[in-house]
């Protein structure tokens, strides 16, 4: 029987517990299989996901869907090569016994995952799975998740996150969401709507009426979204509570307010206010709504983004003549320019890891998504097209999402994702045209 080896951790939806091993020795903390994902040389890790066993006839379809989502998550990361089940020598792998490792080595699977889906006495779904190193013939991890059946996709994402984290050493990101702008209508009269989906494009829902809304940003506690809307005539910053649906205008300024972003602790926002045609950066305390000016000059200062420790802000300004990136203390003060390549730079976003700043770069008539260190060194461009804009970081700082617009009267915006190394550029499917993605934290 499965027993927890330590007290289960209660999360909001999911019960996570470590499983006892089935016989093969559990590996030491540092997995021998762990792949190095930072260097230039890279080969995706070949992994076999055995279909999770359904322990009741009614659980068969659920188990199949769940396994599919796990596979798609891992494959989409670009860090795994998921071996098709048709290639499996031994068909499947029983969950309760030690796998025949030789069979899995034969198909070049470096890692193997086996799993089982059961229904608990309270009707909830319990998913158990084990991760094996086929060369070392070791179990690396055994976990179980318990959740209402309606949350089966989240169980799948949590399972994929556990596999991803165990084998890559990177933080999780599959169980997260993306706020974005849904676009319909013609290019000359776009109708925009705030929308929310799972990071893999599932469960799209709309968060408000059609209108003109831009640039949603997730709160660090995953509960609310900031955005900019013309609802009151001119652009102003609003906040939307995702649970209650309550929306509130934060900006009530004579000119306009825009480009909001939360501080890492969620207590403040940095945003721009425009007065007399001049845009400067301000911060607002969300508790007191007091507003403090951070920059004061005739240039356009906008697109502020806090460092993960909250001590600094990276922003864009044309104070030097063209749009460039600057870093200043979070309370204002001397700003230091960090972008020195040719072209212009905008929309800086500090990585949740703190090491990198992602940006949009305009160079030679093309738009690029790029990253540089926070001191401006090691600039790398990850994408290039007629119009690539608005990067947002996955919660683990490993993947970026942005939007790409094609040229011409029929120009279409769609969401794209790319690995921070520039590999694995992919389209993120959405029901309509889409822009301005904003990645949530990992859900709990």
């Amino acid at each position: 029987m499965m027993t927890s080896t330590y007290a289960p951790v209660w999360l909001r939806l999911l019960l996570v517990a470590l499983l006892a091993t089935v016989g093969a020795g559990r590996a030491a903390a540092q997995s021998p299989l762990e792949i190095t994902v930072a260097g230039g040389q890279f080969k995706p890790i070949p992994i076999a996901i055995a279909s999770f066993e359904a322990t009741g006839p009614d659980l068969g379809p659920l188990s199949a869907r769940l396994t599919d989502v796990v596979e798609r998550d891992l494959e989409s990361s670009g860090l795994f090569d998921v071996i098709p089940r048709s290639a499996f020598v031994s068909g499947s792998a029983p969950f309760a016994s030690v796998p025949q490792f030789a069979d899995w080595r034969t198909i070049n699977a470096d890692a193997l995952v086996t799993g089982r889906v059961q229904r608990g006495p309270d009707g909830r779904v319990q998913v158990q799975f084990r991760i094996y190193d086929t060369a070392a013939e070791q179990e690396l991890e055994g976990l179980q998740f318990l959740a209402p059946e309606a949350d089966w996709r989240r169980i799948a994402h949590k399972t994929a996150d556990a596999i991803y984290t165990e084998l890559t050493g990177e933080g999780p990101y599959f169980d997260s969401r993306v706020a974005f702008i849904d676009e319909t209508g013609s290019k000359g009269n776009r109708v925009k709507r705030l929308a929310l989906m799972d990071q893999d494009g599932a469960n799209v829902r709309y968060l408000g009426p059609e209108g003109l809304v831009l640039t949603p940003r997730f709160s660090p506690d995953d509960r609310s979204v900031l955005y900019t809307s013309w609802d009151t005539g001119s652009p102003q910053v609003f906040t939307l509570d995702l649970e209650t649906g309550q929306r509130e205008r934060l900006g009530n300024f004579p000119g306009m307010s825009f480009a909001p972003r939360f501080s890492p602790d969620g207590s403040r926002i940095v945003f721009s206010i425009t007065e007399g045609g001049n845009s400067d950066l301000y911060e607002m305390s969300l508790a007191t709504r007091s507003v403090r000016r951070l920059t004061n000059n005739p240039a356009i200062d906008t697109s502020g983004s806090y460092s993960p420790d909250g001590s600094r802000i990276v922003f864009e300004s044309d104070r030097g003549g063209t749009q460039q990136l600057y870093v200043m203390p979070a309370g204002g003060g001397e700003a230091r320019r960090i972008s020195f390549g040719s072209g212009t730079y905008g929309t800086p976003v500090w990585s949740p890891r703190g090491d990198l700043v992602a940006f949009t770069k305009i160079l030679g008539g093309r738009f690029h998504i790029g990253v540089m260190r926070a001191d401006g060194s090691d600039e790398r461009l990850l994408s290039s097209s007629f119009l690539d804009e608005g990067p947002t970081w996955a919660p683990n700082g490993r993947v970026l999402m942005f939007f790409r617009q094609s040229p011409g009267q029929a120009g279409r915006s769609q969401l794209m994702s790319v690995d921070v190394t520039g590999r694995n550029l992919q389209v993120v499917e959405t029901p309509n045209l889409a822009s301005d993605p904003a990645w949530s934290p990992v859900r709990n």
Partner: protein
Amino acid sequence: MKIWGLLVAAALVAGCAGKDDTLDASATADAATAVPGGTFGGPGLPPPDSVEYFNQVVGDRVFFDTDRYNLDAEAQATLTEQARWLNAQPAVRATIEGHADERGTREYNLALGARRANSVRDYLVAQGVPPGRLDTVSYGKERPVALGSDPQSWAQNRRAVTVVLSTPLG
């Protein structure tokens, strides 16, 4: 032929709104439907105190170079006519919309649109239009009038449009 006459008149009176001597399709359509008989403004022209006259004859918009918000001689000539018209219609309010082309990032373009709208506002105020009658709003790159992705389209989209909502005569 009525539309042609109107466009030629616009070019003569206001130096024409567009640098390539065309108005955007929607403005042309508006002109076609909004000109009843031109009883006041001469043959084919709307009444001089009408919104249509302001839009089509005075010229409701001025244009900017890439990333710029200064007013060139042509823009100043148009705005001088706008100010003259607004000063002759003391009950009229106007909203100045600032726009940018699609070749910039969204938030920068919002700020740039605000700069352009403010340039126009300042110029009109300097020409005697009371500031209380003028509002500004930026649309950044959200509301292009020319939908192509070419220099001519972008030039038409880098604009500030003085929107006169109504006049006493409607």
